[in-house]
């Protein structure tokens, strides 16, 4: 990058079924918090980036109403979309605007109102998260089906079990009880997961992240601005990696990990000049429990096939070898697509600033990572941050 970029303000709305607000008020909750966190007002913002998938809400062009409501008219909202990695694509765009020298302070909002349509419509929209003709049209695939195809093969090749996958969900719910912004705040057991309704075998209801509403906002600034504003604890962007894969999932040739995530991780580690084992805290894209297991492997925390072992040994708990998703994950905090990637940066920032309260991890080198996947590895963003 030509110029260093830091996170200087973060905000996060309460995630959940938010039928008390429209997308505008929902966005404002995190925008207000981020502006206050950075000690800025809207006047200080050069450009706004809005990440929203929008198809499940009434506002299918959400950028203008959101920017108007948040007092950001004239800040040219750039709307971006990368399915479930939309939030990271907003961060990616914001970081690039600063790194290139085009802007000094950029506000990235991620917001989605997903519960405005019924579940069957939502599944039909998610089923198009691949390739309409060759998947959804003929085979009635749903979004869980795509991840289930990976889960079945991972089980067959490496002996990963449904119980192993359930552990990821149990861990997510345990930490979400401590997160007041989480969609679900109840503890669950392995048995609860195994007994829950089958959605697309082997994926069950409690293997799945919920359909959530929510927003997250991150304010990025250049090094000059960080100095000028005398920011106490800037969180620096150390590395960014991005990649993509085929829309038609069958074309990939193997279904035990996400090639896009592996490629994005390699690029991010290279830019940050660190190795996977240097990461102390990671937020990973656990849209389904198998996705968390594959993420451990794709990020290089363990070799391919050994993800479940890391989970079984408790190495990804707070103060474990590499702590993962101490905020409750997408599984329990919720997964409002546009917000998720920025919500991960919110959580990583809180951890690196040591403002994470009961879930504060103990750092030595203050190195953390976000892993945000769009579609079933159709997009992947890996970002590395440090204090």
């Amino acid at each position, binding site marked *: 990058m030509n110029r260093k970029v830091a996170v200087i303000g973060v905000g996060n709305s309460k995630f959940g079924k938010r039928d008390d607000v429209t997308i505008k008020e929902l966005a404002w909750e995190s925008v207000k918090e981020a502006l206050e966190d950075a000690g800025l007002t809207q006047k200080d913002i050069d450009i706004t980036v809005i990440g929203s998938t929008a198809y499940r809400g009434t506002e299918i062009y959400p950028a203008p109403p959101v920017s108007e409501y948040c007092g950001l008219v004239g800040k040219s909202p750039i709307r971006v979309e990368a399915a479930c990695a939309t939030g990271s694509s907003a961060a990616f765009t914001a970081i690039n605007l600063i790194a290139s020298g085009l802007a000094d302070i950029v506000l990235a909002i991620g917001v989605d109102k997903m519960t405005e349509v019924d*579940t069957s419509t939502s599944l039909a929209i*998610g089923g198009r998260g691949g390739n309409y003709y060759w998947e959804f049209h003929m085979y009635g695939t*749903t979004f869980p089906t795509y991840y289930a195809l990976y889960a079945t093969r991972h089980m067959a090749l490496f002996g990963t079990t449904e119980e192993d996958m359930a552990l990821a969900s149990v861990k997510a719910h345990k930490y979400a009880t401590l997160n007041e912004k989480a969609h679900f705040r109840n503890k669950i057991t392995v048995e609860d997961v195994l007994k829950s*309704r089958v959605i*697309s075998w*082997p994926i069950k209801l409690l293997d799945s992240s919920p359909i959530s509403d929510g927003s997250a906002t991150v304010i990025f600034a250049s090094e000059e601005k960080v100095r000028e504003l005398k920011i106490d604890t800037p969180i620096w962007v150390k590395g960014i990696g991005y990649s993509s894969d085929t829309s038609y999932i069958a074309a990939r040739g193997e279904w035990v990990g996400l090639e896009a995530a592996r490629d994005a991780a390699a690029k991010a580690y290279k830019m940050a000049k660190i190795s996977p084992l240097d990461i102390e805290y990671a937020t990973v894209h656990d849209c389904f429990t198998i996705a968390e297991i594959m993420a451990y492997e794709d990020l290089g925390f363990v070799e391919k096939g050994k993800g479940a072992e890391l989970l079984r040994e408790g190495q990804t708990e707070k103060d474990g070898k590499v702590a993962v998703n101490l905020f409750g994950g997408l599984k329990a905090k919720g997964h409002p697509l546009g917000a998720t990637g920025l919500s991960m940066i919110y959580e990583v920032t809180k951890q690196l600033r040591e403002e994470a309260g009961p879930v504060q991890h103990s750092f030595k080198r203050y190195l953390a990572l976000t892993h945000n996947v769009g579609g079933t590895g159709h997009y992947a963003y890996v970002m590395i941050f440090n204090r």
Partner: protein
Amino acid sequence: MDGIPLLFKYTVPDKLYEKFWEGLKRGEIYTTKCKKCGTLYYPPRKDCEKCMSSDMEWVKLSNEGILMTYSVVKQKPQGFENYSDYTVGIARNSDGANLMCWVKGEAKVGKKVRLTTDGQRVICEVIE
């Protein structure tokens, strides 16, 4: 309160891959192969992204394959509510093409399958 519903009505091209849809009606699976560089594509394509040629020929795929993975769809999306549970799979056929399909019979990763159709989609039958 209720919002105003938005109903999308789509018209999709049916001539572009007519040979594929026609084949499905006869239990056959057709795809395209680039005449210039020989790349076999599945699903079929109008254009070759490898050598930039658009001179493609239709070829019939072999019906022998192996089941690579599968999932049983219990909660169905809009448009499929009236189907009973179906098993979506990925089969690799002996030409090296990877095909999404519906699986009939007892699904298991690595099993040999016979590729056919039900008139509307590719079906892979598990060979016992």
